[in-house]
């Protein structure tokens, strides 16, 4: 086994070295040229999330393909050790080479980045975790490469399907919130791919002769690839059909508030023009460009839950930037030459780096600026949303600060109670007071929205408060702006009705002290349904695996606007499922199957539909049939006896030239 291990190391070292150099060069380039923490930058993420899997997959394939060519397989395999030991030696060498090719350049990058004075960005060891997870991600890809090369498959067709499972694991792991989560996902993929690759290796790539768990593992690996390939193919096919004129783009109507407070309704037409009407539906002689010019300049604020305990995972990722590079350091807007500011979420600090010396220059905390010789002071809460990377306004769940990077100052605005948490905020620069006086600066407004109140700050001082009258989930955002008459306008935006009764938008006007002086209720906006023909809708839904279609419709059960009726979907699921099951039954006649295999595959195809049939074709090896001379039916050539009449195969016809005799070997005769 040691000899095989050393042979594999020596034989594949050149490939690993090539990968090491390639990845090293890419990482070096990114580290040197990147503005921000290189380890968590998107380009570095791209290198590790694509480069590591590619290295693993290619290495896995090469390890098998090199031995498969020119009859070397027999030379390698035929020796007095079990094939499992050969496989283990190969995998051990392959994994070692993979980590050598990937971990060495990564470790060098980490060392470079972690050494003060090399990179003008904050560093923390947690940043390494994301890249380390990508490093682990190459292991399932490596095994997928082994499986793809070892299994019996067609080069153009099903050869690369095992990569599907590694791909799915990588996609989910990319959204993982921690190294542990990503590692668990990769471990799950390895648990399936390792026995699948082993089974293919020891059984000469054959599927049929393997034990049930191995066939299951291989089936799962290939099914993932089949599903991905099928979905991509369907997407391309329907995209092509839609490009031929069956456009499914939905044009949504929307309200526009003009700077004098007038509300108009604009709807984009299919031909690209925009129709503008008043609230009674009378056409107005305004173009889209004129609407843009006349539109009230306002600050748009998303309203959403900010309590992590009440948030869905996707909302957490979106709002707190807990995943990807944003989890470690936000690049803040540039203020002065040779200084780059970062918000570091884990430390809840704002840190500035000198881009020339590439060292910490200082930090801004609640107490103001502190030099590099002092530990950066933390803000009491983690700021939400990277939108604030470009603003002075920094808000947490219950606190708000105005941080001026140019002045290197932080001003505490307010704190609220735990039951009236902040649900949104934004800042806005009002040019109206400036006029023609160049000495006047535009007013800087900060709008902070809690469950009960809109807090309006002007130049970091509380100006007034407006009671919040409408909030999520019915209203997902609001616009606040100052009209030409000095009043403030709040536009509460509701979601689209999609056929169900929903509240319409609300427009509230206040005086400059926050007192409501006018209120306008706008009719609900109704989203038009898909404009594609019904035959296309039916074809698209028919292409979806029946189980997935049923699930999607179940998920949309509370949305009366969804275009499917339960009855139609139930009929479609049953029809597609049944057709697929019958097709599976017919296809199974091509294979030499064990008892119970046909009902099992019928059930799989009933659930999976067309991808199930593709999986069946990709996995199973066709067994030829020939006519049974006894019963005349087409019998499998792999059975010793006809499965219909029990007749054994007829021996090849004797033509009188046959000579069969087992003699005594010459050597024995001589000795005897």
């Amino acid at each position, binding site marked *: 086994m040691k000899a095989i291990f050393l042979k594999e190391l020596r034989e594949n070292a050149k490939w690993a070295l090539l990968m090491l150099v390639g990845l090293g060069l890419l990482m070096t380039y990114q580290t040197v040229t990147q503005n921000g923490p290189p380890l968590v930058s998107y380009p570095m993420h791209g290198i590790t999330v694509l480069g590591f899997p590619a290295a693993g997959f290619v290495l896995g394939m090469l390890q098998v393909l090199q031995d498969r060519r020119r009859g070397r397989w027999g*030379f390698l395999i035929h020796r007095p*050790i079990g094939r499992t030991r050969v496989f283990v030696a190969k995998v051990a060498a392959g994994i070692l080479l993979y980590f050598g090719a990937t971990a060495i350049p990564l470790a060098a990058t980490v060392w470079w980045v972690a050494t003060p004075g090399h990179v003008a960005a904050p560093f923390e060891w947690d940043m390494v975790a994301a890249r380390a997870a990508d490093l682990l991600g190459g292991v399932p890809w490596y095994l997928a490469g082994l499986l793809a090369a070892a299994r019996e498959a067609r080069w153009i067709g099903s050869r690369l399907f095992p990569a599907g499972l590694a791909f799915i694991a990588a996609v989910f792991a990319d959204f993982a919130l921690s190294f542990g989560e990503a590692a668990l996902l990769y471990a799950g993929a390895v648990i399936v791919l390792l026995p699948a690759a082993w089974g293919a290796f020891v059984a000469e790539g054959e599927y049929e*002769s393997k034990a049930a768990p191995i066939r299951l593992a291989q089936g799962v690996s290939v099914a993932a690839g089949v599903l991905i390939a099928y979905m991509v193919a369907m997407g391309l096919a329907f995209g092509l059909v839609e490009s031929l004129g069956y456009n499914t783009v939905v044009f949504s109507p929307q309200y526009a508030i003009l700077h004098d407070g007038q509300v108009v309704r604009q709807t984009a037409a299919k031909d690209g023009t925009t129709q503008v009407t008043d609230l009674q539906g009378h056409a107005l002689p305004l173009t889209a460009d004129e609407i843009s010019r006349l539109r009230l300049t306002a600050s748009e604020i998303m309203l959403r839950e900010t309590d992590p305990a009440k948030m869905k995972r996707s909302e957490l990722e979106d709002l707190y930037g807990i995943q990807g590079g944003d989890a470690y350091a936000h690049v803040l807007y540039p203020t002065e030459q040779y200084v780059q500011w970062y918000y570091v979420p884990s430390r809840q600090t704002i840190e500035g780096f000198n881009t020339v010396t590439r060292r910490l220059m200082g930090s801004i905390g609640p107490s103001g600026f502190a030099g590099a010789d002092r530990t950066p002071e933390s803000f009491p809460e983690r700021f939400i949303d990277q939108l604030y990377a470009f603003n002075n306004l920094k808000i947490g769940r219950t606190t708000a600060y105005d941080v001026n990077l140019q002045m290197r100052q932080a001003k505490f605005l307010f704190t609220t109670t735990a039951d009236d948490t902040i649900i949104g905020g934004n800042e806005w620069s009002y040019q109206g007071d400036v006029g023609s006086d160049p000495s006047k600066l535009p007013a800087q407004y900060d709008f902070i929205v809690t469950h009960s109140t809109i807090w309006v700050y002007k130049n970091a001082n509380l100006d007034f408060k407006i009671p919040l009258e409408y909030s999520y989930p019915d209203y997902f955002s609001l616009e606040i702006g100052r009209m030409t008459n000095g009043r403030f306008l709040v536009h509460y935006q509701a979601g689209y009705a999609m056929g169900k009764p929903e509240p319409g938008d609300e427009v509230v006007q206040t005086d400059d002290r926050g007192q409501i002086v006018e209120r306008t209720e706008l009719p609900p906006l109704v989203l038009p349904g898909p404009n594609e023909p019904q035959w296309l809708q039916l074809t698209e839904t028919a292409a979806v695996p029946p189980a997935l279609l049923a699930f999607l419709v179940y998920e949309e059960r509370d949305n009366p606007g969804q275009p499917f009726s339960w009855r139609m979907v139930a009929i479609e699921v049953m029809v597609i499922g049944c057709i697929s099951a019958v097709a599976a039954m017919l296809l199974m006649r091509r294979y030499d199957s064990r008892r119970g295999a046909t009902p099992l595959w019928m059930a799989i195809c009933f659930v999976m539909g067309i991808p199930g049939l593709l999986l069946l074709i990709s996995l199973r090896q066709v067994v030829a049939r020939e006519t049974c001379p006894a019963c005349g039916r087409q019998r499998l050539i*792999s059975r010793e006896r006809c499965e219909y009449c029990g007749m054994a195969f007829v021996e090849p016809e004797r033509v009188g030239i*046959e*000579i069969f005799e*087992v003699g005594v070997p010459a*050597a024995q005769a001589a000795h005897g």
Partner: protein
Amino acid sequence: MSNLVIETSGLTRYFGRKCAVDQVTMSVPRGAVFALLGRNGSGKSTIVRMLLGLLEPTRGSASVLGEDCQRLSPATRGRIAYVAEGHPLIDWMRVGQLEDFQKSFYPDWDGHLFAKVVEHFDLNIQARAGHLSRGQRAGLSLALALAARPELLIMDDPALGLDPVARRTLLETMILMTRDAGHTIFFTSHVLDDVERVADHVAIIDRSILRVSCPVETFHARVKAVVLEFAGPPPQMPKLPGLLESRRTANQVRLIIANFGPDAERIIASLGAMSVNEAALSLEDAVIAYLGRRGEQTSLLSDIKEIGVAK
């Protein structure tokens, strides 16, 4: 201990719809030098790969050294050496490295024998396998196989592509090995001259069907060449049992007949030939008669001449 080292029963292999090996049943006795002969694509290599468990039979079974070939244990594999077609080796390894690699798997490695064979083939121990000539690769493959001291040596067309000197050296080495009774050699070949020199058993597979499997002496005894001389043009030949080949000239017919017996003699006598003489028949001619088109035929050369004359 069984006297048979290889036994197959109804061994069959299909590739898609094509039958490559059709119900082959044969036995290889211990100590034999067994030659499996056939044309390209007749199924020889497929049989070898199935015997070594490198390919799964579609139907039937085979055992090697008493074990099912699909489940050969490592210990049994250690008793079988295999030289694959084209002498595949790990090309980047040097001759010495290949020996080290190979001997790590075989506790009874015979370094002396390896050195002898390597010397016989004039191999430099520092040379890389990828840089060796075909003959040298064959020699190195044989050295690696023999030094493992196998009970059974299986070789797939070992003389393929070798020049006469390399072939002769290979044969000498094989003969050297069979001096030690108990060693068995099973090989496939196209080079019939070599077979005659070393093999004591011969099997012929024609279009995936095994037609012959017997000792070479039996084969010689049962396949005969007969020359019939006529006063004028020879008559149309009746259906003759065991007829492998029939070539006619102006007033002669040369027949090669398998299992030559009283039935054939009676039919030949009824043809009214002036003389019937048994002609000398080499193993090569006999095997070619098995592998060529059966029945009455003229030579391609005479066909071409006739076309030329007609024009």
